[in-house]
């Protein structure tokens, strides 16, 4: 299958879905309200001039909040792109052989998944959150260097495009090939997504593929952007703080962004240098990383001297968000604030001293390895301090159910598993066994998936009212958060299990005995994917349709004295914007009162209604049965087309009443029974079935009678055919039940349950 077209199509589907959501939400917003009142919003057509003005505004803005939103939007796009890579990897691994995509495609997928997620998703989103909230938290007007801030962001889109030019070129080539001769397009087709692993180890990264050059340039550009951002954060925290905010009362998120930025300005220039050296090796004949020169191991040292701090660059802002958000939902102050700051500083320093634990199996000197083993185990201590403080913060707190809380608690759980498995990996003998297995994949995903996106989602929910002035759908958010925790646990714990079975990682094919666990991991990953789409839907839909917030304190932070400066800013803004609190009339009345006439009782009035009722019930039942049976027939026809349901069994039905075995006769009998026997049974037995609503009762009824159908019409199907037959029988009956109950309700037939009247 063509990987590029598949990926671009999936991306397009997500984008179109988002646009559709926005259009529908906007349209629904402009419709008149059902009570006959006027629409609160007015539909506004976007004119060309307005679009132009918006484009100019968003491309030239230096406002920290707008740049923050741009960063977040960019990171989200990259996350969707990298997420589609991930889904394709998991789909590839559904079968032991490489038969959905080729080995080459698989290698391209895991290479670009890693790079896109690490470089273009996580860092930009955290920088976006930092841009939006850090100045608000420290009482600054803006970032220290607003224009530099804008430049830092605008370097990112071209860098992503350069890094992923392979797909863009391939899809462009494929489209142009329709109208242009193929040989003219060989240049475009030469750009193939690199399949060298995200670590870009030589000699693989020295292999001839022009796209690798563009990838390296793209990464270099993103490194420059990140360094610019890091410098800006440091300058902002150091020089732009409000007078009232000193180092002692600087909030925990700003502390984390400060230390993250410090790591950035030490780590990223090194990556840039190493990338340039690799580019020189590739294009100008230098030998930094070739066997004749510095050797491939030199690259590993340089890469991991950036690469391990990079892990903390993307991890520390997440812990900052956790330390900021968690206390708000447990009604307690963050336990051990100082120690969390110290642990963050300790991680920042130690992160540069652990790089060689990625190289335990490369044959570096055993004494050096041992020292790196010690530092790698030591870095677990500050991380454990954080976990201890988070748990203690929750201890005895007034825990309130909300999506951010579910994400925080889920994160702590997954982080503990990910962290403990990491300590084992820090031990050389264990690492030697597990290094090349799925154990490592499970371990690092439990950490980088288990806490980083979780905290991004938590932040998006926590600050959603502040950013949009509306509340998101909280039921959906709770569901989505729980789903994310379940999906992540299922996927990455399964990968751990595969690792324990010593299943080697990075292979496109694998022995068939691992297939079952791979299917489980794939199902888990699809659960994650669905939950991400739900989040996206919630964010977009609620922006237009969410309930407007009526207070600047939607989380009751004032009650626990945690009303932090950004919410204070929000309160001031609401007051400036609206000024007067909304008033309410003293009395309200419904806009429409249905007429309720009482019928005078009479002889005629006593007899006729009973007869009318009986006729009406039978009529409604027959109509419902007819609709249900016709709908059911549609489902059964699909089953016939698939060969899992034999229409002959209908013909045999006729013989039960002494008629010849004929399909038309059998079906007529089936339809007749569907309109008489089963609706009447439903009307008489319905009240003994569960469900307040007729629809629910109808579903239960259909489920019960499906068992009889399954036995009566079984024609010897086995294996998958039997499963499909059972599924279709159940589905057909559910549709029958819904049709029957819906029609009866619509026609006003007698409710099968005993309760009468509106509830």
């Amino acid at each position, binding site marked *: 299958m063509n990987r590029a077209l598949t990926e671009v199509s999936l991306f397009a589907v997500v984008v179109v879905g988002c646009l559709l959501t926005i259009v529908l939400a906007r349209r629904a917003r402009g419709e008149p309200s059902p009570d006959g009142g006027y629409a609160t919003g007015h539909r506004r057509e976007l004119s060309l001039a307005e679009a132009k003005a918006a484009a100019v505004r968003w491309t030239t803005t230096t406002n920290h909040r707008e740049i923050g939103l741009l960063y977040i939007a960019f990171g989200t796009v990259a996350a969707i792109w990298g997420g589609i890579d991930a889904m394709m990897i998991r*789909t590839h691994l559904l*079968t032991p052989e490489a038969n959905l995509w080729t080995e080459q495609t698989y290698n391209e997928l895991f290479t670009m998944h890693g790079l896109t997620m690490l470089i273009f998703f996580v860092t930009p989103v955290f920088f976006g959150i930092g841009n939006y909230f850090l100045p608000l938290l420290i009482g600054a007007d803006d970032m220290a260097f607003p224009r530099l801030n804008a430049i830092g962001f605008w370097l990112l889109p071209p860098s992503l495009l350069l890094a992923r030019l392979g797909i863009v070129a391939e899809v462009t080539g494929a489209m142009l090939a329709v109208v242009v001769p193929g040989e003219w397009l*060989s240049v475009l087709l030469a750009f193939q997504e690199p399949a060298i692993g995200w670590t870009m180890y030589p000699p693989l990264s020295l292999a001839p593929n022009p796209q690798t050059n563009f990838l390296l340039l793209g990464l270099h550009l993103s490194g420059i952007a990140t360094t610019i951002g890091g410098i800006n954060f440091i300058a902002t925290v150091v020089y732009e703080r409000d007078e009232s905010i000193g180092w002692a009362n600087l909030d925990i998120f700003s502390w984390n962004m400060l230390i993250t930025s410090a790591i950035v300005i030490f780590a990223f220039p090194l990556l840039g240098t190493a990338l340039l050296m690799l580019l020189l090796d590739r294009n100008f004949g230098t030998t930094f990383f070739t066997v004749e020169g510095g050797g491939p191991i030199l690259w590993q040292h340089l890469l991991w001297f950036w690469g391990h701090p990079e892990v903390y660059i993307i991890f520390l802002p997440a812990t900052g968000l956790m330390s900021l958000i968690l206390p708000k939902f447990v009604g307690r102050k963050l336990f051990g604030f100082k120690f969390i700051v110290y642990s963050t500083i300790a991680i920042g320093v130690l992160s540069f001293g652990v790089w060689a634990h990625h190289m335990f199996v490369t044959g570096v000197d055993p004494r050096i390895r041992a020292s790196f083993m010690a530092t790698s185990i030591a870095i677990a201590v500050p991380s454990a301090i954080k976990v201890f403080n988070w748990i203690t913060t929750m201890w005895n707190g007034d825990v309130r159910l909300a999506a951010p809380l579910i994400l925080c608690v889920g994160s702590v759980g997954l982080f503990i598993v990910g962290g403990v498995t990491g300590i084992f990996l820090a031990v050389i003998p264990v690492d030697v066994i597990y290094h090349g297995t799925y154990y490592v994949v499970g371990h690092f995903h439990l950490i980088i998936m288990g806490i980083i996106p979780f905290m991004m989602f938590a932040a998006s929910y926590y600050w959603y009212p502040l950013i949009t002035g509306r509340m998101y759908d909280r039921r959906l958010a*709770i569901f989505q958060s729980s789903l994310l925790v379940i999906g992540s646990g299922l996927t990455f714990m399964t990968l751990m299990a595969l690792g324990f079975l010593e299943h080697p990682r990075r292979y496109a094919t694998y022995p068939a005995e691992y297939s079952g666990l791979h299917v489980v991991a794939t199902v888990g990953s699809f659960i994650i994917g669905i939950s991400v789409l739900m989040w996206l839907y919630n964010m977009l839909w609620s922006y237009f349709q969410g309930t407007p917030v009526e207070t600047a304190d939607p989380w009751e932070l004032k009650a626990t004295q945690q009303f932090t400066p950004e919410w204070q800013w929000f309160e001031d803004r609401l007051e400036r914007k609206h000024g007067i609190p909304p008033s309410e009339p003293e009395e309200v009345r419904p806009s429409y009162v249905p007429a309720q006439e009482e019928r005078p009782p009479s002889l005629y009035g006593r007899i006729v209604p009973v007869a009318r009722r009986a006729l009406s019930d039978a009529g409604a039942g027959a109509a419902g049965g007819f609709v249900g049976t016709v709908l059911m027939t549609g489902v059964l026809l699909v089953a016939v087309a698939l060969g899992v349901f034999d229409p002959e069994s209908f013909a045999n039905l006729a013989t039960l009443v002494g008629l010849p075995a004929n399909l038309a006769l059998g079906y007529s009998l089936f339809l007749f029974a569907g309109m008489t026997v089963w609706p009447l049974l439903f009307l008489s037995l319905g009240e003994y079935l569960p469900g307040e609503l007729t*629809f629910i009762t109808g579903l239960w009824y259909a489920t019960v009678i499906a068992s009889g159908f399954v036995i009566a019409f079984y024609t010897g199907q086995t294996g998958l055919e039997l499963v499909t037959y059972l599924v279709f029988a159940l589905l057909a009956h559910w549709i029958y039940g819904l049709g029957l109950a819906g029609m009866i309700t619509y026609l006003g037939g007698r409710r099968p349950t005993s309760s009468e009247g509106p509830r």
Partner: protein
Amino acid sequence: MSDDASPSDADEPSATDSTGPVEPTASSESLVLTYAAPFLGVLLISVGLPLSIVGGYVVVQDGLGLCGEPAITATPADEYDDSLATIEEIPAEQLSSAEREALEEAIDSPLQEGRVSGELENRAALLEGVVVEYEGTHYYVQITSQNSCLEVQPLLFPIGAVAILMGIGGVLTPPIYRKLAGFEERMRR
């Protein structure tokens, strides 16, 4: 499910009031229909997706020529210095016509890849990697992807599709339920 209440559209709870957040799920609301049914739905979609992908792929793979055509790469032997000295060499004439076409395609391709659309007579040798002399140049030729055909029951596709549809029904249960409850209430009035 018998304890299900019927919250209608009209009494959709407000997210916040002047004192702070309102509980997202009203106490009268069924937890089964608000959370358990959609979860079952997501599970069905997540199981249905792999089933329908694998089942669907097996249906289209022959029609679209997605399997059974191995890909080979042809790299000029001089890129390997002397390391190909011990590799078996076969003359270009020994290649089948399909193999030769694939070799020519690979030589012309910027990616050095070609597809063998036909008889693969030298499968064993090409899997190991061989040196082929073609028009005076030596190439190291090897199968890079076997493109083996997927073998599963096509029936997985409809099963997966039905699972996805049922799953979507499950995910949409909370709003559908609220709509149906509203409909039934209106009908009763």
